[in-house]
């Protein structure tokens, strides 16, 4: 059958009902520059961890904003907080603090460490 270049993709729906925004809200309140992100991916490109694993700070930002906290928890373990992402960010987003705050937020809201 001719598919004309189209394929069927698996369902990728995001269940916003079940997602928990507490961590995103905590970060928004403590680090307002989180809103400035334009998802350019500069941070991911410079990231040492990103070069060695599938870790991507850009993806992490989206996951936090969506409230997919379990994935966030798994991902931020890998960050070394070296700060290169903050230095390359063209929008002046304090990306390092966002990871730091996410770790803090897990302790505060979910009572468990990352």
């Amino acid at each position, binding site marked *: 059958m001719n598919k004309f270049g189209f394929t069927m993709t698996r369902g990728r729906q995001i269940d916003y009902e079940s997602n928990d925004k507490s961590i995103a809200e905590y970060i928004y309140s*403590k*680090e307002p*520059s989180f809103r400035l992100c334009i998802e350019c991916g500069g941070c991911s490109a*410079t990231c*040492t*961890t990103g*070069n*060695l*694993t599938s870790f991507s700070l850009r993806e992490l930002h989206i996951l936090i904003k969506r409230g997919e906290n379990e994935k966030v928890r798994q991902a931020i*373990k*890998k960050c*070394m*907080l*070296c*700060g*290169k992402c903050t*230095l*390359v*960010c063209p929008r*002046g*987003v*304090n990306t*390092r*603090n966002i990871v*730091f705050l996410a*770790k*803090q937020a897990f*302790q*505060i809201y979910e009572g*468990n*460490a*990352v």
Partner: protein
Amino acid sequence: MKVMQFDPFIIPFNIGLYFILFYVVARSVIWFRDLSRPDKLRLQRGFFGKAFGASLKEIFLEGLIHRKILKNNLRLGYMHMSLAFGWFLLILFGTIEADIFGSKHLNAPYKAIFFRFFNPEHGRMGFERAYGFLMDLILAFILSGLLLAVIKRFYSKVVGMKKTTHLKAGDKIALISLWLIFPSRLLAESFTSGAYGSGNFLTGTLGSWLASFLPAQQMAYPFWWLYSLSLGTFFVLLPVTRYMHIPTELFLIFMRNSGIRTGHKAGSYSEVQIHACSSCGICIDACQLNFSAGITNIQPAYLLKGLRKNEDVSDITFNCLMCGRCDQKCPVGLELSPIRMIQRRGGEGENYFKNVYKGYLRSRQNGIAEKVNGSPSYDFLPENEPGKVDVLYFAGCMTHLTPSIKNSMIKILESSGVNYSFMDADGGACCGRPLMLAGQDKEARELINYNSQIIWKSGAHTLVTSCPICYKVFRESYYLDVEVLHHTQFIKMLIDEGAVKMRFLRKRVVYHTPCDLGRGSGVYDEPKEVLRHVARLEKTKFEDENSLCCGGSLANLKISSGNKKMIAKDAAGYLTKGQPDILATACPLCKKTFSAVTETKVADISEIVADALMEHTVKKNLSKQLRSIKELANIS
């Protein structure tokens, strides 16, 4: 004449005095008990040994005369000296006066403090008069300092300070009672003198003038009450206000001279330091976050005050560049950065005392909950099998963002002919210091172990790094059997050994000392000597210990990019005032921060050196490369 021996107005003073004496002794015992065993031994040895003399000298010079503040700022020093030293003299000579001229020897303290009330006729002639002159002189000395203090509170520029500390209600009451002590003494003594026709140049003159139009006899008594009440209030409030620094500083000086240091965990010594801060505000003036970015609530004076009051200081703690300027300037010699690091390591503190009165009982720094850390997973870091080399070069994350530094270092290493290997050529693991600065020591330890293994496997005897941040952590937190050198030290060594030849660049250069290299690690001279070797080094107003921070410090997790830029712009402005050709630094992060905000060319020392490298050394390298090409050709 019958000498009065007692009057009810002395009761507030007596309550305050005996309360504070008891409190200070009890608190000291608790602090001593909380010391670790080795520190206890140190303090005992220090107290009964050589350090005792040194401590007494320091108490006199710093606690009373305030020599360090005087050196820094004459008017502010005079203010502190007149209050501390003046009060001390007043108590000392007052006690002697009561002892000599009183009805009997060894009097209760109140007899000396309220001497004139009980001996109103005293001091009319002869030796008594001369002694009265001395007492008046001391009182005038204190009052002159008090006048400065009052003016400073409303207009801080008078004493040469740009900012002064904000106060809380308890502090204000204590401050007012402190301010009232000496004027009320002056008026009480003057009225009594006026009524009896005694007194000296200050109390006598003022007294007779006041007595000329006021009923001095009746006016005196309320002022004696006020004097006693203000003393009593001050003493009772002292433990919960910043004035606790007066007794604490004595204890601190003995501890420090015995060799006790802050360390990594909260303990008795950090607790004593927190209470020994007088909130003088010198750290606020030294802080670039204050004078460049206008952030005036995070300085050590406020951090320590927050800790004393058991407030939530988590935002203050992380909003600091850790440049160490305040450590250098603190007149009490508090280890401010280590205290802040202790706070960063702590978890989310839950047990803040909300009740102010519990401040009296707060004896231990038990507000810091042990931080719970999950297991970090840095196991993705690749296994690294380096070849055996003499020198290992670690560029560090920041250097990878400034490739020209990395390339310059490679050029220098190549031309020097040392047997080296580039440890993180493909961007290796972080050194661990950024995690440490965020208070995550356990995670940092994983990276430290990973890097240590690579270094150990390489068999290198020297580790060269381009980044002062890495340099500091390699020296302090890695347990390695290698010599750690910053690249400026390494280049200095190459020059001394004649391994590299350079031409002299006809350029005017100023040097910016990076915080972690200078104040952080004590490396001041090598970078400047290298610069003098290749260019004309000029002085700035911010040399060595007084150097500025570029503002880009990784230690500050909270600062916004706008504020960062303001600090960088200001600092670059100060440094390039003399219009140098190059603003040289020894840190990739400083270079990156500065180059964004200044017109002047910003260069790392390695870049300047690589630029000045003589060509013949490069030729030698070329021939080497040619030879290897030949060898390759032979093989094929």
